[in-house]
Structures are given as C-alpha cells and as structure tokens.
C-alpha cells in the first residue's frame, strides 16, 4: 500500500455571477489520481492556472475536495473533519512559495517553529521542545542564534529554510512543497533543493514538489505529473517524462525551456496562445486548441489517461512511446 494515494480527486468551485444568473463551475482539479511511497518525490508541473496549487492545498486539506479520496496510511482524509482531521493532518505538512508572506512577521523564529509543537502538544515541557527546536534549526542549516530574531532579519533563502523547519517540526510523512524555490536566486535555489533531498534521505518522508521550472523538477523528482486545465495529462518516471515526453503538451513545455547552449542548438517549438479559462474548457481534449498535432477526433472526444509503457501514462489519442 502506498503512503498516500489520491483517487479521482476533484476540486470544483461554484462561481456566482449576479443573483439571477445560474452559477458556473470552475473545475480547478478534475479527476486526478496518483500515489506516492515513503522516500519518493513526485514532481507536479504545469502552467499557472493548471490547478497544481489547488491540488496541493486539497492534499493537505486546506481545501475540501468536491469528490474523490485521499488515502493517507489507509484513512480517507477527504471525509475527515475537526479533531480527527487535525490529528491525521499533522503528518502532512506544506512549504509555501512566498518566503516573505508565509512567516508571521510579528513572531520570532522560535515562536514560528514551536507553534506547531504547541498546537499538537508535542514534547512534555518547554525543555524538550527547545531541544527539538535546536535540532530542527541545525537540520535546515541555520545556527541556533537565529532563535530570537524576526523573519525580516533573514534573506529569502534563510526564510525558506525556516519554513521547511516549521514543516518538519511534527515529523511529517508527506511534505507538500508548492514552488518552494521559485522566489530564490539560482545559487540559493540549489542550496534549498539539496537541503530538501538530504532531509528526505535522512527522514524518509515523501515529497510532493510543485514547480514550473522543469529542470528543477526533473532534478529532484522520481516521478513527474504534468497537469493541464485541472487534469493530469502525463505521468511517469522523471527522466522519461522530460527526456522522452509523450504528450504534445509536455513536449512543448520541455521545448520552451531556454537552454544554456554549449555547442549545438535545439529548435524551439513556441506554443501558440494561452491556457483557456477552466470555467469554460474546450470540448474534447482540453489541449486541442493549442496542440500542433490536433485532429478532428481531438475536438470531440476527450482522451483517457492510458498506460503507453509500464509506469508511463499519457492522455492523448496519439500518444506513443
């Protein structure tokens, strides 16, 4: 059994525009399934608005899913509420994108990292908590002198380390990282990526790593899921998905990444247009209006996610290995 298994997850939002108009439905996440094992990293990529952040928030139950199951160690988190949910959710933590917005500016680093310990009454007394606290700071590479300082005294990379320490405080089994390095400089980004991998190796937690930078995701992930308009369009081993993408959307995403050329140049496919609004998705395959190889079939018949080779899935009528 997997550590975390998400089955047919849907997160729909009802949008009301005026009193007399019928509500329209925004399908932010539409029928997404995946599983993840301890010590594994699942990378999730896609353009803004594809639903990756909504998915992340639904997994840790910051949002209530419309349908589907989130099986964590055998319990369905999707239907849990109140105290039962809080108890389970301890083991799923989140690291947020914005290292400036996600730390309370009025709390010291000690208070920020101790807060989850206090809420869940971990550690018998202040003394055990403070031991745990210095362990956490050391684990993320900050020195203990940071304890009584405030977030504004730290750089972006250091704040992201604080955010990671807070997420690790309750010894989670799954850590969901939503664009954890996007706001950082490349050199600092490399430090944080290495830190996450080291922590994963020592603590054995599973990572869900959401980012729009394909190179970073390929670097850190074991498997990758590509999302488009709320749906998973391709999943598979990280190398396979990026090096030999099967879905035309993944192909164009990979081709759009500007590469540092040290010699030969690669022709770039520039994908026309933008992702359509998820309120009114196109019929058939949601990608067909931008797809370079779309046929008549794609305009009417939505493709199913099918296994094109063991462990590698794609939802395209014409997907091949």
């Amino acid at each position: 059994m997997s550590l975390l298994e998400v089955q047919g997850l849907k997160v729909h939002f009802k949008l009301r525009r005026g009193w007399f108009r019928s509500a329209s439905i925004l399908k932010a996440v539409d029928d997404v399934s995946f599983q993840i094992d301890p010590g594994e990293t699942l990378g999730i990529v896609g353009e803004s608005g594809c639903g990756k952040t909504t998915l992340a928030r639904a997994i840790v139950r910051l949002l209530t899913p419309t349908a589907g199951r989130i099986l964590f160690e055998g319990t369905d988190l999707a239907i849990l509420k109140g105290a039962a949910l809080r108890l389970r959710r301890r083991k799923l933590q989140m690291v947020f994108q914005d290292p400036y917005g996600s730390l309370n500016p009025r709390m010291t680093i000690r208070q920020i990292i101790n807060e989850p310990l206090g809420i869940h009454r971990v550690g018998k007394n202040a003394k055990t908590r403070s031991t745990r606290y210095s362990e956490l700071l050391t684990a993320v590479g900050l020195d203990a002198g940071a304890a009584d300082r405030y977030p504004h005294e730290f750089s972006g990379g250091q704040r992201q380390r604080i955010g990671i320490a807070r997420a690790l405080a309750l010894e989670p089994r799954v850590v969901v990282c939503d664009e954890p390095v996007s706001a950082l400089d490349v050199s600092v980004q490399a430090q944080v990526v290495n830190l996450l991998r080291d922590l994963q190796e020592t603590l054995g937690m599973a990572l869900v790593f959401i980012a729009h930078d394909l190179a970073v995701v390929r670097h850190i992930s074991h498997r990758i899921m590509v999302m488009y308009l709320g749906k998973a369009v391709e999943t598979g081993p990280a190398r396979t998905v990026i090096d030999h993408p099967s879905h035309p959307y993944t192909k164009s995403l990979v081709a759009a990444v500007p590469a540092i050329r040290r010699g030969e140049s690669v022709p770039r496919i520039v994908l026309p247009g933008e992702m359509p609004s998820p309120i009114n998705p196109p019929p058939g395959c949601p990608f067909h209006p931008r797809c370079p190889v779309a046929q008549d079939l794609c305009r009417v018949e939505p493709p199913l996610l099918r296994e094109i080779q063991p462990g590698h899935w794609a939802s395209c009528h014409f997907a091949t290995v």
Partner: protein
Amino acid sequence: MDIPLLEVRDLVLEMGQGSENVRLLNGVSFTLRKGETLGLVGESGSGKSLTASSLARLTPSPPSRYRGQILVNGHDVFGMTSRELRRLRGGVISYVFQEPASVLNPVLRVGTQILESLRLHHPEAARPAEVHRWLKRVGIPSPEKRARQYPHELSGGMQQRAVIAMALASQPDLLIADEPTTALDVTIQAQILDLLRDLQQQFGMGILLITHNLGIISEMAGRVLVMYAGQIVESGAVGDVLGNPQHPYTRALLASVPSLQGNRDRLLTIPGQVPSPREFPSGCRFHPRCVQARPDCSERMPILEELSGSRLVRCPYHGVPA
C-alpha cells in the same frame, strides 16, 4: 569609428553621507551597439537593476551620487537638462520590467496608456489606429477590443505584451528589459522572447537584457556581462563566457543551475550569499564564497583584466582550477 548607442565609462554610484556612505556600483564600464542584445546576469543584489536604472538616471540624485560617464548616442546623460532627460526616458531609452501589473495603470484602459506614450514622443502618430497597430505587432489578438479593456482584464502574458507595445511605440534606440519574463510561464516566456527578437530585427533597437536565467541569455544575447557585488566580474561573447567561464563566480553560477539533461546528483551551490553594499569584503568581493580563494585574494581588489579581444575577467587566478 561610429558612435556606439550606449557607452558606460567607469560608472560609480554612491548613496548616504559620511560613515553611512555606501558604494553600490563600482567602476562599471561597457558598450552596447545598435541592433545588439547585451545580457546582464548576476544574483539579486549584484547591482544589475541599479545599473539599468542609472542609464536614464532613474535613481534620483541626490540622494544618490554618480561618477563616471554614460553616453547615449554620444550625449552625456549626466550633463542633460531635465527637459532632455524627459526626452531620453521613454523616448530614446525604454524600459520593460518584471511585473507588467506594476507598470500598467490599473484605472486607465490599455489603449489610453499606449496612446500616452505616442503622444509624448510621437505626437503626429497619436491616433487610436496607431495604438491598434502596435497591439497587433506585439501579437495581441483583436487589438480594438483589447485597447478598450483595463489591465486586470488581460492575462500576465498579454499585459507584458501591452507593456512592450507601450515601450516600443516611442521607437526607442535602446530597450532595457529587466527580467521581462520572470513572472511568466515558460510557454509564454518563449512567446515573449520570440517577440522581442522579431521586433529587434524589424526596428534594430539595442536591447540590454537583464535576467538571472542563463538559458535566456544563451538564447538571446550576443555578449554578456556577469555582475557581482556592484562590479563586472566577467564579460565577453555569450558562447565563450557560458561555454568556457573564466571567473570562479561565473563557473559557480553555471554549476548551480540544474539542466534538463543532467543526472540526478547534487547541485553545486555557492556557499553564503551576496554581501550587502555595507559589508563588501576587502580585496576580491567574491573571495569569502570562492572555492579557489587564496590568501592574497582578501588583500587586493583584482582588476578587470583583458584576456583576448573582448574577453574581460576580474580574477588573477582565472581559468579552470588545476
């Protein structure tokens, strides 16, 4: 020899009084020719955006104090009257910044804002039809409709196109693009970069492209400047600098970028972070983070040494470590 479009000679920028005095830019020199794309890379805090905003004297002086020379088409920017500066800003030099939403006025229609740019710099062409032409040129579909919309009705990619239309409507000689695609998705980024290249071919403007993304530099620029702590540490043709980096900082920067081809092993990191201008180290400013630092690196500030042709490196121990 013809006059380069832009020539910066030994630019120094200081702020603060007495003991508070900090030197933010230190001896920055470079040239940019018509039709050329010059890349400027470095981490946050390296001084790349300050260099860019100095070119049209966008950082007010005082409090900032400049030394050195900035020549635009041979005219000294520091000698300009405020009237001449107004013509320079937006007319000869246009800027495109990272966040299109912060450039566009949220309460004015997109078309009105582009019309304003035309009215200031080309009053004879300040007509709605001309606005629509520009919107079309930057690849905005149904320009008549878009011109009537407000910025919030456009997506990030469309907003950035509108900003580019506004910047180019004055037909500048120099476009300064400061992280123009950092806020955008890769697919939209590819569209915007293609657009900039096309427009450059059409209008022949010089582009100073500032980004921390070395891939973008590799695809777009002919020459590149690498900045660290307010100084240029390496410059040269893009292929040479990225293919055969000489300064340890450039090498470290390249090694910390995960590539789409690499193996899943550790990324190399640069220990520590860019120092703030108040605490620039003595000697070589990179030495506390440099893996190749030698004892004398903390004593003398290395000079920007010419290796060959247009290749400059600020490290006496440049080259691949033994």
